[in-house]
């Protein structure tokens, strides 16, 4: 959908003002970061103002000794990682369809990558957030310390909300020291090999399985331990550049399947031998090149039956309309709607795109 107006505010305050002006005129606002996940979610019903965050690209503070960083939402993940690398640190997130994700976009979509197995998603190391609300206010929650129970954890509320409650303008993260040793090994043994890697005495930080049976496992930790474990597995060592290559992956039309991890194999195998996908067996996630609508309906039914979901990450509008982007709404939809109404009473943020 083509926006009537594109706004590129240079400051958080300007962004909040732009949002307020649009909201008070009842105009629909679609926040955009790097655009790497722009196909996610339902068909946007209206887009009067496309609100781009990319000029909000400052590192507000990086305190290497505290291992905390605060950035504006429009900074790209690569720029942030480059800043952290100067101090031998990193943010343990490696989303697919990279490069070019902005921090705000990553938080809004809730996307993650292979490192999720060890580090969780951004929700697990996001320690503070600042959000512009449709009434023009800028609301902060959390802080810049690694452990904090002061007030409601609104970080969790905005993570994965696809900008439907407010526009993320800044965020603070707990960062991590680069590991002493980082080693990646490869096998072509399919699901069984992936299970073997996950069962090692030292939990790998990533295990990725591809539809052609290839498996990548990454181990972080002390040199002796990593060498010992890798030797025990007996796989082939590969260059860690495979991870950059993997994070660039995406399909032109694709879906994310998430299920309890003990159900993943069954659900993914049901996609059929000709299907193309990669899976994170330890996390219970798979990314699938969307098959035809009937196949997607079957896959979704199976995923939902075991408590999971199938969410469209990119698809033509007609397919999105037929399938629905999110699947069966959760039984807490009414609670979510009350929260939506509390933050965006006129429904001007990303109308039609999120579940609420």
């Amino acid at each position, binding site marked *: 959908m083509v926006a009537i107006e594109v706004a590129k505010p240079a400051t958080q305050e300007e962004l909040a003002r732009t949002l307020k002006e649009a909201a008070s005129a009842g105009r629909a606002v679609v926040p955009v970061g790097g655009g790497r996940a722009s196909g996610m979610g339902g068909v946007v019903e209206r887009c009067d103002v496309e609100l781009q965050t990319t000029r909000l690209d400052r590192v507000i503070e990086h305190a290497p*000794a505290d291992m905390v960083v605060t950035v504006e939402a429009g900074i790209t993940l690569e720029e942030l990682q480059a800043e952290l690398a100067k101090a031998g640190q990193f943010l343990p997130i490696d989303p697919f369809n990279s490069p070019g994700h902005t921090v705000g976009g990553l938080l809004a979509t809730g996307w993650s990558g292979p490192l999720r197995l060890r580090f969780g998603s951004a929700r697990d190391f996001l320690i503070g957030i600042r959000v512009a609300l449709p009434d023009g206010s800028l609301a*902060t929650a959390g802080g810049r310390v690694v452990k904090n129970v002061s007030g409601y954890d609104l970080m969790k509320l905005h993570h994965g909300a696809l900008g439907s409650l407010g526009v993320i303008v800044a965020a603070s993260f707990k960062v991590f020291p680069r590991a002493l040793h980082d080693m990646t090994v490869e096998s072509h043994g399919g699901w069984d090999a992936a299970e073997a890697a996950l069962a090692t005495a030292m939990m790998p930080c990533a295990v990725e399985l591809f539809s052609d049976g290839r498996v990548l496992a990454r181990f972080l930790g002390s040199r002796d331990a990593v060498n010992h474990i890798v030797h025990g597995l007996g796989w082939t060592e590969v260059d860690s550049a495979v991870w950059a290559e993997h994070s660039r992956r995406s399909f032109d039309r694709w879906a994310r399947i998430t299920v309890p991890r003990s159900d993943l194999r069954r659900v993914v195998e049901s996609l059929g031998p000709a299907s193309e996908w990669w899976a994170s067996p330890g996390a219970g996630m798979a990314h699938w090149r969307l098959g035809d609508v009937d196949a997607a309906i079957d896959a979704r039914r199976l995923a939902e039956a*075991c408590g999971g979901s199938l969410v469209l990450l990119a698809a033509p509008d007609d397919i999105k309309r037929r399938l629905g982007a999110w699947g069966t709404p*959760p039984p807490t939809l009414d609670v979510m709607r009350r929260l939506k109404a509390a933050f965006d009473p006129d429904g001007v943020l990303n109308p039609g795109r999120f579940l609420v």
Partner: protein
Amino acid sequence: MALASPVIDELRRAVGRDHVITSPDDLRIFERDGSIEGVAPDAVVLPANTQEVAAAMKVAARHNVPIVPRGAGTGLSGGAVTIHGGIALQVTRMRRILEIDPIAETALVEPGVVNQELSIAAATHHLFYAPDPSSQKACTIGGNAAENSGGPHCLYYGVTTNHVLGMEVVFADGSVRWVTGDAPDRAGLDLCGLLVGSEGTLCAITKIKVRLLRIPPSIATLMAAFPTIEDASQAVSAVIGGGIVPSALEMMDNVTVGAVEAHYRAGYPTDAGAVLLVEVDGVPESTRELMAAIRDILARNHGYAMREAATQAERDLLWAGRKGAIGALGRIKPNYYLHDGVVPRSRLPQILSSVGEIGQHYKLPVANVFHAGDGNLHPNLLFDLRDKGVLEQVEAAGEEMLRAVVEMGGALSGEHGIGLEKNAFMPWIYSEADLDAMKRVKAALDPRGILNPGKIFPDPSRPRAHLAGRTGFAAEAQWW
């Protein structure tokens, strides 16, 4: 404010006649949590299951009566105190471990399950539950989830919210819902993440699905002494900056070390300005290599008298000193007030020196025992309740310490919660707009404000914060 008899009757119908407490003598037992300020509830209900929780909630909603979920009552910020009276929703009859799934590495528990009991049960499957508040022998998983509790091993493993996969909750209207679940990234808002740590102000928790972790094959524990707190703080930063995140990194200052050593003979050098306990776990190759690297770093930062536990008994002794520190402080003064604040880790030396100065100013001995790796400090103000006016001094000193924490870019609480203790201080760290956003959440989920009123947000009827942090007779404290 006594409850009208129809309310009591309805509560009896909701949970059974034997499980409603209304006699004033019995109610007094429930007037406090682990903190000093107490107001007795007007009734205590002890539901046996989710349906009874929902029924009790509906009674409260129908009559617009405050209702406050309560676990073991070990909380340190007044979270379970019925400050505006009403109903205490005591969940300790709901204490079944419903399921441990060794394949999925998860457990489903009722809210009254004691933290340590879960780890003991999971050990059969070589699994454990990571968050380990020092009260873990008594505190409940429900209380932990409500407060988003921490503990020494959260440095590496993360706090409660990182381990809760989903919950069954009862909202203020009595509706029972599952939030989130076993699968990651469910479509919709992360209600589970929002509700963990909401201190009983948004819902009552009736079931919790948690992640379990595999018990590490090897653990190494090292004690090291330092000439000064500054040296020890520097060593903490150097270890983590060196790419090593230990599973625990705890500090005790000289005052604590002296008291602990006299009591436990754990082998801490009493001439030390500070003692660090460092623990790493993993495969044996890893713990050996990491411990060697840690020893190097500590030595370069003036660490001395380093001793690594060679046996489980030695490890237990090293930890006994740390875990029993508060009790040992009874040698100095009979009472203590335990504070909780977090600063950016690099500010530790500075905040500790401020804390020391404030203690001196108020003529109160201060002992520091804390989670150094997280920058989460726990100053203990030591006093004798028999000294006239001493509580006011303790209160004033505590408030000044918290001010110092906030001025250094810190947070009001790292793991104890805001509750009653710090709700008046929330405007120190949050603007009106920030608090308004949080209040919108409260209004959306509990529009009539019946769930745990008077907590987290400044309470107009109680404009001053009160001394609510853990106080007690030091000699009685076996854990905290």
